[in-house]
């Protein structure tokens, strides 16, 4: 049985841990709010972009379509862009994404495809390095960005497009976590290249008029597609940021609660021990008095 002093020390240390996790939970809650606002603010752009792309891709088809839309016509080399967080202590958030990536890699390898990985975020790279370190071709560190902006997405987009132009992959898939709610984020795989026009986006009703394009339809599409890809990456990053904070919030909430339970149990044992000691001392005194 540990001594009373040891109990007191244990309780003090669990209490300070609880204070830390509580603070982290509150910080995550505040950051989550900001991340959600940012994600909501980016909504209109993505929506409009989807409409424009749907409208354009209806008209430009076949061989005249830009390579980003058409693809290379092969499906041999796959590039997986894995977006995870930069910091840990957010529950199963990164593990979930990495697990999905691993499943995909196993499937692709079984089908005889070559897999390459581009990591975004430190945590995903650390987890993938163990088994698939040889496949990681590049790594993007986002810890320098205080707030995520479109330039972060453009940085990743440029890298992906440069690789595509070199012909080093055929199909690119982006992995990230969709933000559903604070307690639930779904890891998602989304094809980036060849670009897929969004589902559900309708071309606008022109009321019989004919669209005119300046300079030309193909030229506009050529310029628009990279931005569409960037937009998708940006959206994924924002969802990831919100998901990370949500996951951290619930993880830290759990930790705080666990610490509370532990303190309760420890104080019970501490009090019991203290009373046992008092009883023991009393018995010693009484039996000593009786002996006289």
């Amino acid at each position: 049985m540990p001594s009373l002093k040891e109990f007191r020390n244990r309780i003090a240390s669990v209490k300070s841990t609880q204070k830390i996790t509580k603070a982290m939970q509150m910080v995550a809650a505040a950051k989550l709010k900001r991340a959600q606002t940012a994600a909501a603010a980016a909504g209109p752009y993505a929506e409009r972009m989807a409409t424009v792309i749907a409208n354009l891709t209806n008209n430009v088809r076949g061989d005249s379509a830009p390579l980003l839309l058409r693809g290379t016509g092969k499906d041999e080399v796959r590039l997986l862009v894995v977006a995870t967080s930069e910091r840990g202590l957010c529950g199963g958030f990164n593990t979930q994404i990495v697990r999905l990536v691993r499943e995909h890699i196993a499937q692709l390898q079984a089908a005889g495809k070559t897999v390459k990985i581009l990591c975004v975020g430190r945590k995903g790279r650390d987890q993938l390095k163990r088994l698939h370190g040889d496949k990681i071709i590049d790594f993007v560190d986002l810890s320098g960005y205080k707030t995520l902006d479109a330039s972060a997405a453009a940085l990743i987009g440029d890298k992906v497009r440069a690789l595509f132009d070199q012909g080093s992959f055929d199909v690119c898939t982006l992995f990230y976590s969709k933000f559903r709610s604070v307690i639930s984020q779904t890891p998602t795989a989304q094809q980036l290249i060849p670009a897929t026009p969004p589902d559900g986006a309708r071309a606008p009703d022109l009321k019989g008029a004919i669209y005119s394009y300046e300079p030309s339809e193909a030229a506009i599409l050529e310029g628009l597609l990279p931005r569409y890809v960037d937009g998708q990456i940006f959206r994924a990053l924002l969802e990831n940021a919100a998901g990370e904070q949500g996951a951290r919030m619930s993880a830290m909430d759990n930790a705080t609660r666990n610490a509370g339970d532990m303190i309760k149990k420890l104080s019970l044992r501490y009090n019991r021990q203290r009373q046992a000691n008092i009883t023991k001392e009393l018995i010693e005194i009484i039996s000593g008095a009786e002996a006289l």
Partner: protein
Amino acid sequence: MADKLHFSLVSPERELYAGDVDHVVVPGSEGEFGVLANHAPFMTTIRPGPLRILNDGGERRIFVNGGFADVTPAGLTVLAEDAVDLEDLDAAKLDQDLKNCREDVGDAKDEAQKRDAEARLRRLEAIRAAMR
């Protein structure tokens, strides 16, 4: 009252402007063009420059750094890569930023840094030109 044009200006980060206006002048890549209500469907790319919103006799200028304009019967949508409201800017501060940026270009240690600084400089110069 004349018809109003529904105009929205969005950048990847947020929606900068949404509402009904009289007239919008957009810096298109093939030349500046004005859009009034009931314009024919039209799509074009944009070059960096000032976008002017004319409404009820007032004028608001927003700097857009490239992007796309899409005119449909529903209205005009500008998808800007980057947009700054010129009213929020202070000429003196901008000049200071410009000066710093020029120094950055000179001080750049490697190619990547230099490219980055030059891109920033081009953007600031375009904004400065739009202010005059």
